[in-house]
Structure formats: structure tokens, C-alpha cells
């Protein structure tokens, strides 16, 4: 079976598959940026010591971590337009869904990042007359980000893999393009093996970089 592996079909469709990859990558980057910001806010809420804020943060995290991403994608794709009463672009609705969902995971990473900074540092900041926002912005968060960089990157690699799920709503990411070509030319074996290979190369390179970062930080 492997003998009649047809590389031609992959080469012919490279431009189309490339377009899909661009969509996957831009979705990943935008979603990561958005959910790191939202996740950090949620983490600060969870650590704020203010009852209602802590409750909102914790509920958000527990709620989204209990649901499959696929379900969240369906919700946003079909039902949000009904609620907002206007049309929502498929890419936008997927992006919003990813940000809200992944923020729950980034929140927990940032929370342990913030907790990893000794309380003494914040106290020192307050003693110097810094306000809470200044203290967080200049002392705690930069260090938390630095310490958590490898874990944040790992989560972003997972996010990149998760973007393949937009296939279920037909958004033309790398996975959807691969499936479209596979079905059109009935070359399943070639296209799916190729897709797996491409994802593997990207994600594995990413994880090697994470290992390098970890070594650098722990040195």
C-alpha cells in the first residue's frame, strides 16, 4: 500500500494547504494573545482576596475546564449569532470561543506564576509606596511571565493543536484543507499522514524550544 504513496497530490495542493496553515497560525496567535490577557486578569481576580471576584474567576475556570472544546466551538458557531442578532464571521466566532475557553487554562498557569513570586517582593513594593497596579505591573507580573514562559508556550502548542477542531464547523484551517483535498482526490492515506507529519514537526520543534527555555531559566 505504501508503494503507491502519491507525493504528487500533496505537491499539487501545497498552495491550498499553505493557505489553511496561515489560517491555523493566525487563529493560534490571536487566540493565544487574547487568552493570555484574559487569563492573567482571571488569575488576578482569583488572587485578589475579594469574594465576588474570586468567585467569578474560580467559576469561569471550573466551568470551561469541565467542557469539551468541541462543545464550546459549536455554541459559539451556531448560537452566538442568535443571541447578538447579527451575523458573526466564522473566524471571529471561533476566535472568541477559543479565547474564553483557553483563558481558563492560561489563568491557572498565570496564577501559579504569580504565586511563585515571593510575597516579600510585593510587600517591598508596597513599602516603597507603589500602588497595587504598579506593584503587579512592574514587579510581580514580569517575573511571573518569565518564570512561566515555558508552560505558557507549551499551552500555546496545545492551543495550536486544538485549532484543528474548527474542522467541525468547516472553517478552512490546515486540517480542513487537508480533508477537502483528501476527499476530492480520494487520497486519504497521503493527506492524513502528511497532515500528521506537518503538525508533528511544528509541535515537536516547539517543545524542543520549550526544553531549551526551561534549562535557561533554571540555570
Amino acid at each position, binding site marked *: 500500500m505504501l508503494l503507491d504513496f502519491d507525493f504528487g497530490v500533496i505537491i499539487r495542493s501545497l498552495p*491550498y494547504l499553505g493557505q489553511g496553515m496561515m489560517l491555523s497560525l493566525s487563529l493560534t496567535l490571536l487566540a493565544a494573545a487574547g487568552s493570555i490577557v484574559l487569563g492573567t486578569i482571571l488569575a488576578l481576580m482569583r488572587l485578589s482576596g475579594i469574594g465576588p471576584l474570586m468567585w467569578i474567576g474560580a467559576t469561569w475556570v471550573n466551568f470551561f475546564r469541565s467542557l469539551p472544546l468541541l462543545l464550546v466551538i459549536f455554541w459559539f*458557531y*451556531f*448560537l452566538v*449569532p*442568535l443571541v447578538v*442578532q*447579527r*451575523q*458573526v464571521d*466564522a473566524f471571529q466566532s471561533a476566535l472568541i470561543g477559543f479565547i474564553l475557553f483557553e483563558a481558563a487554562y492560561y489563568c491557572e498557569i498565570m496564577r501559579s506564576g504569580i504565586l511563585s513570586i515571593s510575597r516579600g517582593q510585593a510587600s517591598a513594593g508596597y513599602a516603597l509606596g507603589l500602588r497595587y497596579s504598579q506593584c503587579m505591573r512592574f514587579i510581580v507580573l514580569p517575573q511571573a511571565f518569565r518564570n512561566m514562559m515555558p508552560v505558557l508556550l507549551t499551552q500555546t502548542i496545545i492551543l495550536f493543536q486544538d485549532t484543528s477542531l474548527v474542522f467541525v*464547523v*468547516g472553517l*478552512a484551517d490546515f486540517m480542513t484543507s487537508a480533508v*477537502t483535498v483528501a*476527499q*476530492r482526490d*480520494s487520497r*486519504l492515506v497521503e493527506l492524513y499522514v502528511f497532515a500528521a507529519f506537518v503538525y508533528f514537526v511544528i509541535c515537536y520543534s516547539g517543545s524542543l524550544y520549550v526544553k531549551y527555555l526551561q534549562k535557561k531559566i533554571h540555570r
Partner: protein
Amino acid sequence: MFAAPAEQKEGRGVNGYAYDSQERNEMFKKLAILSAALAIVGTTEAGAQDFYGALQKIKESGQIVIGHRESSVPFAYIGPDQKPVGYTMDLCMKIVDEIEKEIGVDSLDIKLVPVTPQTRIPLIANGNIQLECGSTTNTMTRQKQVDYAYTTFITGTKLLVKNASGIQEVEDLAGKAIALAQGTTNERAIKAAIEKFNVQDVKILNVKDHAEGFLALETDRVDAYSTDDILLYGLISKSKSPDEYAVVGRFLSFDPYAIMLPRDDSAMRLIANRTLADLFRSGEIEQIYDKWFTSPIPGSEPLNVPLSDTLRTNFQVHAFPG
């Protein structure tokens, strides 16, 4: 015109506060005239510039969003240059031209969104797409959520099998496997037939769309795939070895295809139906039909399905005067 004086009189009455019954009757008469007058003014104004629903959305955004199928040959499918083409796509483009004329725009930005049998209805219902161009059967249940233009094609459920399998009718499926696309009328028709004729031990594989269903048949995962017969011919014509396949059995359902539109939007539907009626009346529809059903089409051999008498009659029935 005469709305202004009516309004003035009305204003005095309202400011007077106290009425006897005669006065009240008088006032109601005036109110009736007033509202009639306002209604006339209102409609002429709306006819000139005010649009509502989908047309308003299209005019404001300068963009029309069209949902299309990706593997419904020859209605709407991805052609060799990766763009959707097909019979229904052509009809939709005619409707887009008419919409441009109606709202007075030179050219609309056309956004194409791929849809599947499961996504097409929610997407129309929630307003994400304004036209669905593919091969959608008009059903009463679906009309609770969406609206349809005039029927543009008529077909029904049959079975696609490999010649070698020997399957002739739905009864022969006993102990065999069949793929069905989720959310299609055919899925229900086949399941109903299996129950009605008490066919034992039929394995059903759920697939997402026609391409996946045909693939399941091609790779011997199932013995049959079922959808509307015309689509089955389309699948065969696009396959690598058309001689291996056959469309068999009697019609298990009646499926009139129509372009889907948003519900409660008669202005939008009017434009779609006017476009179709014009095509039906002028006979242009037959050229478009021949282009897709009897001539070679992008990416495959001709389907060789001549215009049926039923469909011709359907065109004549809906060729309403302009």
C-alpha cells in the same frame, strides 16, 4: 400630500382632551384617514430606499454572504480552481445581480461560506448567511426555521452501490452496511424504509457529507451510500472508475430542491422568486440546465441527465408573469 392637514386637525383634537361621543366618532374617522395616509406615504418611502431584513443588512454592509455546499455535484461543488461552481451557484449569482439592481449598488462583495447538511439551516436561521446555494430539499419542518424560493430541481432518494455487490433495492441491504449523511432528508427516508420493509441487521455509518459517504463506499467500508439520485450520478461522474458504480432502486422519497432564504423576509424572497420566474419564463433556465446536466462540467464528464417532464412543468408553473 394630504397627510399634513390631517395631522393638524388631529393635533387639535388631541389637545382638546374632552370629547362627546359624536366628536369621538369624528376623531376616529380622522384617525383612520390619517393612518391610511401615513401608510401610503410609508410604503412609497420604503419602496424607494428603506429596506429591512436581509436586504437592509446587505445594503448596509455592501456584502452578501452566500452559503454553498462543497460536494453537491453539479449543484454546488468545489471546482478544479478551488472555487464553488454549479447549477444552483449560477442561479444564486443571477439573484445577486437582481439584488444589486434592487438596492442600487454596482457590485456587492460576495462572501462564500462552505456549509454542510448540519450547518446550513442554523446558519440561515441565525442570519449568518443570506442565501444557501446547494441541493436543499424544501420541507415543511424546515420552513419553521427558514424560507425557500421556487423549486429549481426535483429528485428523490435512491441507492448508490458497487456493481459487484448485487444490491438492487433497499430490501437487499439486510446484513449490509450503508452510509448516510447526517441531517439529510435521505437519512430519514432510508431509516423509515428500513423500518417499513423490516430489513434486518442493517449497519449504518454516519458521515458528514457526500464526499465522506462516497469515500466510505469506495474504500469498502459500506456497501451502499444513499442520497438524491441526481447527486449520486454526480458522485459517480467525479469518481476514478465510474464503471464500477450504479444507482439502483425505486424512489424512496420526493425531494424538490430550492434555494434557502431567511424566514419572515418576503422582500428578499420576492427578489429571488422574481429572478427565477424571469429565467423560467424566458427559457434561459434550459440553457443553464443544459450547461450543468448534459454538457461536460468543470472537473468531470457530462452527467447526461436530460430535463425531465416533471421539472419542465415545474418551471412552467412558476413562470409567473412579471
